[in-house]
């Protein structure tokens, strides 16, 4: 289910940097387990995965990872509240049926959520729409509209507004551009909403007032 192609794998390195050593991590949409393996190797995390494709699940099992076949829309309720230190949803939120519900679930089962997604506010996307009047096809959004798994695209501005609505704190934000290291950034900066091809957010629940 993870979409976006090779352009945004920089988020793996950034996630590995952000995650605290020896923490418990759930990777939702873990594919063949590349990120979980990286986190286990570099940070000693105790990882779990959810993956929709049987091939991905088989690959994870062969790597010794604990993975459940399932999807983010339906199967997050498997986990009790507070099961994990981090729940990761990398390049997947835009492809789920109920992004708002999923986002809430991530922060029910995890103390923190790490979410990355393509930014539909990127200047190239806007330019494509303005000049061609066609749905943009970019490095972060490589598929034509009729074939894309990305059914809930949003801009950084849209996403931060949803976080506010759900009363989630954005603890960190990084802009992701293909081929370059992740760059810490202001999640609500107007300019950033033009510049970032994709963005990664570390979210937590706001402490009760």
């Amino acid at each position, binding site marked *: 289910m993870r979409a976006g192609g090779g352009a945004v794998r920089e988020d793996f390195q950034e996630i590995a940097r952000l995650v605290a050593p020896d923490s418990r991590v759930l990777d939702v949409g873990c594919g063949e387990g590349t990120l979980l393996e990286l986190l286990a190797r570099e940070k000693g995390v105790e990882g*779990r995965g959810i993956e929709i494709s*049987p091939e991905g*699940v*088989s*690959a*994870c*099992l*062969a*790597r*010794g*990872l*604990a*993975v*459940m*076949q*399932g999807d983010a829309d339906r199967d997050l309720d*498997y*986990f*009790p509240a507070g*099961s994990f230190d981090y729940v990761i949803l990398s390049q997947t939120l835009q492809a789920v049926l109920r992004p708002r519900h999923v986002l809430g679930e991530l922060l029910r089962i995890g103390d923190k959520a790490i979410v990355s997604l393509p930014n539909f506010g990127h200047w190239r996307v806007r330019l494509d729409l303005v000049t061609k009047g066609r749905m943009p096809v970019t490095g972060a959004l490589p598929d034509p509209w009729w074939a894309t798994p990305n059914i809930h695209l949003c801009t950084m501005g849209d996403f931060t507004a949803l976080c506010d609505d759900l009363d989630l704190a954005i603890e960190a934000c990084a802009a992701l551009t293909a081929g370059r290291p992740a760059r810490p950034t202001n999640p609500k900066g107007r300019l950033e909403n033009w510049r970032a091809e994709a963005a990664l957010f570390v979210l937590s629940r706001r402490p009760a007032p």
Partner: protein
Amino acid sequence: MNELDTLEAAGGEVMRFAADQALELESGSRIEGLEVAYRTFGRLNDERSNAILVCHALTLDQHVAGRHPLTGKPGWWSRLVGPGLPLDPARHFIICANVVGGCMGSTGPSSINPATGEAFGLAFPMITIADMVRAQAMLVSALGIERLFAVVGGSMGGMQVLQWAVDYPERLFAAVCIAAAARHSAQNIAFHEVGRQAIMADPDWRGGDYAAVGVRPEKGLAVARMAAHITYLSEAALQRKFGRELRHDGLSFGFDADFQVESYLRHQGATFVDRFDANSYLYITRAMDYFDLTDAHPEGLAGAFRRAKAVRFCVFSFTSDWLYPTAESRAIVRALNAAGARASFVEIDSDRGHDAFLLDEPVLRDALGGFLGSAALAWSRP
């Protein structure tokens, strides 16, 4: 020498337990002089760390690989147990034992009751899945194995795997539960009741004492098997295999087997009675009906699994299995997660129904191989 012959060489054996090693049953009864028939494949390594126990389904037996002595057919899991397969005698010491209550050499209702010198019949005590597992644990101990590398099973075998994890979590490293459930549903119990009533309605059943008069309730047992067999298949599999195909040109306008599917079921029933005992069928189906791990702990299934946190679980289901549907496996996985256990889950896309766990399913083979391979690496690391 072909592969089957190599496996055959391991042979079948019977473990006889001394009178002071009685099997204490959940019902409060006990079985003295317990016998457990089993087969092994491969060799136990010096560290005694490569033993895999395979638990069999309702009407199967210890002949998981090699050749079956009665039917002459290859072992029931020869697609998964053998050279180069996920359970490999070159790497693993594979044990498969006939369940207590069975009819392939382990103590069961057709065994001789020492008190009467006749077959037990209905004098045999009621057994449960937990009792089967306790007998297996006795066998594993008698074979000098403290901790199993893995316990693996499908259907009723999968229920035993779960029971192992609940009752003896410190005695297994990995657990593989395939096409099973943590409790028998109303529908499961209902189908079993049809089978039992068919057996008991056969005049040759004689209140369970048919052995004394040298008859067998073959008709009843065959009907039980026919009904059960339908539950092992999917509608799509039956339709694909038979459709409305006739055995001869035209209808007979009678009650002979006009349709291929009728003939197939009759054949399934007829061959089953040659290798299975009717009373064993009653006792084992009852044991399955009584199975309910969700009731075993005040905190439900998750509570039952709490002691098994250190066990690596892998749960498999098949999309078209309506006997133990995916929802049942998901309930198991949910409880394992709630208990904080290390659980993996694979739902395999197959239209072959419950029986898929016995058939050629490459995803099952590959995923099981990957799971056991990585688990073996994890166990060998200090």
